């Protein structure tokens, strides 16, 4: 990109914040009350991860794979990409994450050590943050209809996923972590950059 240093985050924002929030609102309206079973499934996964840790890995990973595939298709590809052409690439990344999560369940298990208390604490915190993420929007004055909910919107889904991965200590290898952590982290980075641009 020529003269890249002259670009700011706002130069990449190609839609008005109100357009984005109306898109979220319409999406929530179209799929309501799907949010409720998704949140319930999230709570159940959190409880399972908290109580059974490593042994809960397989059903949790499969569930998360489904959620990533859903958010990538229903939100990013079908909707967000209509106002942000770059979202189609993020949707592709979400589908890759779904495949990786599903693929990791094929690994042999029962040989991995339990995660340490630090990782479990941080994981529980992040996963809880992913579930209560809609409260952030309410605190910022946005109406409930524009809530970003786990299993429906990218950022709470990424937060929750990172949290659960830490909580169950999976993947235990550096390569596995690199594969499964990067896309959620990238998603959160993009979300934070967009939010920052909205606020400024």
């Amino acid at each position, binding site marked *: 990109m*020529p*003269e890249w240093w*002259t670009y700011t985050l*706002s*130069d990449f924002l*190609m839609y*008005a914040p109100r*357009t984005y929030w109306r*898109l979220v609102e319409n999406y929530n309206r179209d799929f309501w009350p799907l949010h409720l079973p998704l949140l319930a499934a999230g709570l159940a996964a959190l409880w399972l991860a908290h109580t059974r840790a490593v042994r809960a890995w397989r059903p949790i990973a499969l569930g998360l794979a489904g959620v990533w595939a859903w958010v990538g298709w229903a939100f990013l590809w079908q909707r967000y990409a209509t106002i942000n*052409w770059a979202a189609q690439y993020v949707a592709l990344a979400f589908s890759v994450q779904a495949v990786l999560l599903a693929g990791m369940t094929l690994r042999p298990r029962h040989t991995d050590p339990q995660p340490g208390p630090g990782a479990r604490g941080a994981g529980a915190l992040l996963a809880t943050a992913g579930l209560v993420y809609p409260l952030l929007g309410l605190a910022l004055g946005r109406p409930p209809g524009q809530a970003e909910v786990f299993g429906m919107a990218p950022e709470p889904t990424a937060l929750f996923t990172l949290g659960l991965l830490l909580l169950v200590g999976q993947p235990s290898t550096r390569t596995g972590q690199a594969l499964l952590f990067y896309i959620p982290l990238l998603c959160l980075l993009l979300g934070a950059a967009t939010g920052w641009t909205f606020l400024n």
Partner: protein
Amino acid sequence: MRRRDLLLPLIPAFAPGLVPASALAQSPPQPSILTRPIPSSGEQIPVIGLGSWITFNVGNDTAARTQSAEVMRQFFAAGGKLIDSSPMYGSSQGVIGEALQKLQAQSRVFSAEKVWTSSDGAAQIEASRKFWQVPRFDLLQVHNLLAWEKQLALLQAMKAAGQLRYVGITTSEGRRHSEFEQVMRSQRIDFVQLSYNLLDREAEQRLLPLARERGIAVLVNRPFREGALLRQLQRHPLPGWATEIDCSNWAQVALKFIVSHPAVTCAIPATSNPVHLRENMAASRGRLPDAALRQRMAEHVARL
């Protein structure tokens, strides 16, 4: 004699080519819309057009698409012609095309599009044309000089084949001005599009004089710095001299500053708000500032 009557004769002297669209018509009820000629053809276009960056990128939101169509309806009703878009602008092209169809305005619009790819420009242009639902574009511009050697050759060939009326290049926010100038000097183009406003005046140094010298029409983007300039100005009272140029708000002041530059053909503010559209379009009527007042305007705004 009113100040208005005193100022009007000065306009052609300061801005040659600036002609009221209905100058030959009999006493219109309101000031005639101001137009400028495209130097390469002499065709007149109104000095205020309509941009679509961000504002028309509303996706499949039915209510927002309806509002965009209303903005376009009022734009045409106020005498507007030129609408500008780009493949980079998300759903804007489709929103414009849908509104043109709804308003049956395909024959009234001056369609200004862009090619923005380093690969198959012809395929992208055809996709854009289908979004617009027009038989051909009036103007195609190489967006931000991307692959300009390749795409400009394509546009020139399309023009020669009668598939296009005008060819241009664009830049924004003051980027790549030296390369832009080089293209203006070395290529036969009809239009350039660049950023110019009360605060961003770098174009006055070289590009605007060069456009006059080379007979190139100038479209001006970011007249309000994506609204930031107006948000800043609206914290201050409108100066007394605003009434001397028939401005009742800061948007009109900002636009009249731009279109009164003798090299400028058309400014393309973008809005999704019909009220703002009407305010913007009012800047295409009435008196324009002369060189002395333009200087005062720039100095005044720089101090705020």
